[in-house]
């Protein structure tokens, strides 16, 4: 894989993560009451975090950078927890707060990383 191929593959992963994070932000905008009322909505939110974290993990893998301590390591760690936990071990209130507080700044980080990759090309 050439450096250009790696950048293109990494950008593709970041764009998929961005799409999932944008949906998380939209779900948050619909409010906590809607989240609390719907099991499907809660599961959907967890699924979107798994997608976002998986794609960020793949982005690091493509670029061969360390998973730990990197700019996306907390989102990847959350993905690991959600993917390997049973549903009764997940605190949906804490997940809601992560969605409300962390998804927006993370989305901005992902946008910056996409721009940085484009600038390298």
């Amino acid at each position, binding site marked *: 894989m050439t450096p250009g191929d790696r950048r293109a593959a990494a950008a593709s992963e970041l764009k998929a993560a961005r799409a999932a994070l944008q949906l998380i932000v939209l779900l948050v905008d619909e409010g906590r009451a809607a989240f609390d009322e719907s099991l499907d909505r809660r599961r959907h939110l967890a699924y979107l975090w798994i997608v976002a974290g998986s794609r960020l993990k793949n982005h690091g*893998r493509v670029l*061969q950078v*360390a*998973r*730990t*301590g990197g700019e996306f*390591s*907390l*989102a990847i*760690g*959350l993905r*690991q*927890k959600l993917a*390997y*936990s049973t*549903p*009764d*071990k*997940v*605190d*949906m*209130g*804490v*997940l809601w*707060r*992560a969605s409300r*507080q*962390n998804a927006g700044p993370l989305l901005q980080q992902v946008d910056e990383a996409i721009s940085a990759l484009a600038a390298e090309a």
Partner: protein
Amino acid sequence: MARYDMWFDPNDVGPDLTVECLISDGPRAGDPAFDPEVGDVVLVGHDEGERRRGRVIGRRGDHVWVQLELGGATAGVGPYDGGMTPPDRPSDEELQQAASLLGDLAGRHGLANLRLGDPGQLVVDVAEDRTYFDVVAFEDAVEATLGWRPDVIPSGAEAPNPRGPVTGASSAA
């Protein structure tokens, strides 16, 4: 003490059972004594709880290529268990012995009231202004300090299964 030397991605294992690892991305990243050379036997593990023995077949700085061994006993880590035991989860005894440090690290991340959960798990109360990112950051800090990683379960989960406080006292029950 770390339960394995380097992390590997099971999706990247080649047909010759070779996988590329990064020293900087493993539990021994900060260990200056860890300097694998071609021919050395190492233990590699991954997120799904598997731990395997392998032989170093190449190295370039931080990058190490390891050829995995399949089956048989995993030297130095007890009988082979089919890869079902998470390699980096602590025992109750280890959690109790580290009670003071765990409490200190937890407090820095807005977590309190540490209790033993299911094996390898810690049940914690999460402050109202904290999120799962703080929970993960706490797990990272514990792993960086102690070489193992508890699975931290917020007490608001449906079934956190707390068994008793982490106080430094014996957990035998």
